């Protein structure tokens, strides 16, 4: 069984999370630049002398496909590495996936991770 873990984290925490995951046996990941808000509810910037509110703050989205049994541990690893304790630290969720294939070899299932 495989799970897809999705984590939304602060951009400057990317290196830390990546290293923590590598240290915990993760062998691949996919990263996307996203923007979002949650409790943090945006912040104030200024342009040409006026302030304005931006709702959507830059974040990084990390996606990793992992064996189901390691998922909760890895989520804990991510949470620990990504935490600053300040608002805007992000979310992590997981979902079941029905099948995985490695393009290069055509291997399937957990072989393909």
């Amino acid at each position: 069984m495989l799970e897809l873990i999705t984590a939304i984290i602060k951009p400057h925490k990317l290196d830390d999370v990546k290293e923590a995951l590598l240290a915990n046996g993760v062998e691949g990941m996919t990263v996307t630049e996203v923007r979002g808000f949650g409790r943090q509810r945006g912040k104030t910037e200024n342009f040409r002398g006026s302030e304005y509110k931006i709702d959507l703050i830059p974040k990084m989205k990390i996606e990793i496909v992992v064996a189901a049994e390691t998922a909760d541990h890895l989520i804990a690893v991510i949470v620990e590495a990504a935490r600053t304790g300040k608002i805007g630290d992000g979310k992590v969720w997981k979902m079941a996936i029905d099948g995985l294939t490695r393009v290069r070899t055509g291997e399937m299932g957990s072989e393909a991770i």
Partner: protein
Amino acid sequence: MDGMTLKSRLGDKDRQRFFVTFLGGKLIGIVVAFAAILGPGQLILGKAVHAVAPNAEIPIQDVINGQNTAWVLLAAFLVFFMQAGFMMLEAGFARTREVVNVLQECIVDTCLCALLFWAFGFAFMFGFGNGFIGHEFFFLNGAQATYTYHGATDTGVAFMAFFLFQFAFADTCSTITSGAMVGRTAFKGDLIYSVAVSGFIYPIIGHWVWGPGGWLQTVRNGVWIHDFAGSSVVHTMGGFIALAGAIVLGPRLGRKFKRDGGGLPPGHDLTIAAIGGVILWFGWYGFNPGSTLSSFDAAGIGRVATNTTLAAAAGGLAAMLWVYPRVKKWDMGITINGFLGGLVAITAPCYYVNATAAVIIGLVAGVVVVLGIDLIEHMRIDDPIGAVAVHGFAGIWGTWSVGLFSNGKFGVPKGLLWGGDAKQLWSQVWGNAVVAVASFGAAYAVMKVVMMMKLLRVSEDGELEGMDIHEHGSPAYHPEAAYTGKGM
């Protein structure tokens, strides 16, 4: 030496750095190397093409004309280069979806302006005629060797060099306008109003102040408006045409103003905007010092260049510091607008004031720009680039400042603050007001008509899709072009 051919002289190494001699007795002749002035048609010849007659004379006037013309042309090139600055500033301050539109407008306005100014704009502005309009030199016909203000004052500048310099000014005025109309002006509408601005409004009103016999030079008993390089003629006018355009168009869809809980959308690329601003500053060194029309006026061009610099510097710092308490940040956009305001303001007085005055004029201009942007925002007018505040309002301040700060040594009476009387100041205020009102009025009428023809404002769908795709068929950026043969 007399009687020697140019060729033999130049072939003689010992004389390569020869000095014309005036040895006692009668000077029979001064032999001048005419080669350089005989045009390059000959330069590609593989043989000697001419010899200088003995007894040729020194063309002092040629030295002067050549030097002035070179100066004015180089200045014209710098002013032309301001187009790149405007394009970058306007594009950088715009949103991603309207960038091509901004760029293309500036390019096409330049093209249009060149042809219009050649056909009749220059004739209206710098041809002799009456106080209201000139009507000489259509299609540059009837041009003389140098431009002479209808015989009043020989500039010593070759006619077509003078034309180019003035074209570059006209082009600036028209580009300023587009800045306040970013993001919702249909391209056809842009073409139409640009013809009106470059071909008629700018040259005709410009004639009043700068043309030979313009009426604003003759009113008020000889104390007329002095606008050295165009705080009124180019900037106030550009700013108020821009204002008319922005008012007639209305704001961009979804634009919420400060008092309605919104604010100006941030520019999409501040790197480009900042470089554009610095290019404008650079180009201003053509705008102001070039307006002496002469590099012989060595003290004058030095003074103008230094005053220009000091006012820009003061304007940038003043604007930045003025908004700091408000936003608690070192706002780059306002710093750029601030130094541009300083440059606009010093444009009229740069020749007539000393360095201290230039600093003061710049400081005030920086604040004027900030307050002006606030005012325009408060009036719910959508000016994405700040053209009205930077060019319109700082242009007013700059024109007035001649009457306040002129040091009395360079052809304008002492300013009020240096102990002069108020006559000059009132002439500045009056002249500037005429320019502002006339250009606003004329532009408002033009814009209204184009708006009523349904050509000025792009359709709602087009605006939401973005001007770039809707009007120009292409976004500014195709990052996906990294990966695929075509657009993704």
